[in-house]
């Protein structure tokens, strides 16, 4: 009898976790779900890029689950398990949501339906992962963390291992940058701004991006940011790392959404700088918000 109650309780907690994940997924991906350029990307993009998108998303999910996921001290197999669950859930959520807003219909070709759902579900998956880990009540999370740790690992094993802070920072910065920058990357407005901006504008954007990161990390007592300020050289190094991450993520997103291939070098760089503002906010503030 006690066992049945435990099983029911365990299932109920998992369903609550999924509920949180779905809310998180929608919260972070709604701008993309309502963006026509994203639907189009689904059927324009070559299958090899879609495959890359699935692969990269899976790696990001593993990275996020490893360093900020809900279950502290999870083993590699558990991280893989959770990431598979999140991708599956994201695919179902994206499919149903696109069906709800009539962006997919059963009369459409399989290529079109699959393309649209794949593109949308990848960002939903990261949102689900973040939502599951970050949107829970404290009491519930605490229970879960304790409950899910196998007895032998509570005494040591993975839990005892110290995370490499630099790798953790990089992974979370990439996740944060992807979450924030992907909301604007597919829109034509990035290209319009990039084309119309002078070199001075772009330089100002670059400075502002670094300034925002600096204020977020060292001068605003932003959520989970360290109170103490490091040396100036360390600060500059950290700012540069976040900015480079934002640029690289920006380039990858622009390439995926077809905003690089047919444009000259100057326009591509200008687009990266324009998108870099969103990317750095994601890599700094976003990282702190989604991190553990």
């Amino acid at each position, binding site marked *: 009898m006690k066992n049945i109650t435990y099983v029911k309780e365990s299932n109920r907690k998992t369903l609550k976790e999924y509920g949180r994940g779905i809310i998180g997924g929608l919260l972070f991906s709604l701008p993309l779900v309502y963006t026509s350029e994203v639907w189009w990307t689904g059927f324009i993009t070559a299958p*090899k890029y*879609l*495959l890359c998108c*699935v692969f990269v998303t899976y790696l990001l999910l593993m990275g996020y689950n490893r360093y900020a996921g809900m279950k502290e001290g999870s*083993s590699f197999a*558990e991280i893989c398990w959770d990431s598979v669950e999140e991708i599956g859930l994201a*695919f179902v959520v994206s499919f149903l949501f696109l069906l709800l807003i009539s962006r997919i219909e059963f009369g459409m070709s399989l290529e079109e339906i699959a393309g649209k759902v794949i593109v949308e579900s990848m960002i939903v998956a990261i949102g689900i992962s973040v939502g599951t880990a970050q949107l829970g009540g404290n009491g519930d999370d605490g229970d879960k963390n304790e409950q899910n740790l196998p007895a032998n690992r509570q005494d040591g094993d993975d839990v005892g291992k110290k995370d490499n802070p630099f790798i953790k920072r990089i992974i979370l910065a990439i996740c944060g940058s992807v979450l924030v920058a992907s909301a604007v990357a597919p829109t034509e407005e990035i290209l319009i701004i990039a084309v119309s901006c002078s070199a001075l504008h772009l330089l100002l954007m670059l400075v502002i991006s670094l300034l925002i990161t600096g204020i977020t990390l060292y001068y605003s007592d932003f959520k989970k940011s360290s109170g103490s300020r490091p040396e100036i050289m360390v600060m500059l190094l950290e700012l540069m790392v976040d900015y480079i991450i934002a640029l690289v993520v920006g380039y990858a997103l622009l390439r995926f959404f077809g905003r690089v291939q047919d444009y000259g070098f100057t326009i591509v760089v200008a687009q990266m700088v324009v998108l870099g503002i969103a990317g750095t906010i994601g890599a700094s503030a976003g990282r702190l918000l989604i991190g553990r």
Partner: protein
Amino acid sequence: MDTGKKSYNVVEKISFALGLLVLVALVSFLVYQMVQKQNVPPILELSIVEEPLTPDYDFIIEVKNVGEETAESISIVLNLYQEGIAVEEGMIRLQYIPIKSKKTAWIVFGQKEKLGDSVIVSSITFVKP
């Protein structure tokens, strides 16, 4: 890799199985598409049928892309011929027609219907995205 240490509940097992199924299906589908794809450009096939249910003189135009790439900014010009003379012109503009997909459009002519009328496609233009 100590998988056996943690026990998963039924909901987790079901969603993992579903997730794995989705992931395998997705990857297989994309790999299949990559292997199958022969870079055939967009090929647009048109069918023009008179709409019998409306009082106007209109036609249903169905455009199907049987190629292997999406067609973008499609523009189709149609002419209504009566007694061998083009008496009216109409244009259809479509944003996208994805691979193996079709779009349906309507064209309404102002002329009265005559025996022996024909609708001819004058030009089809599109760009490759």
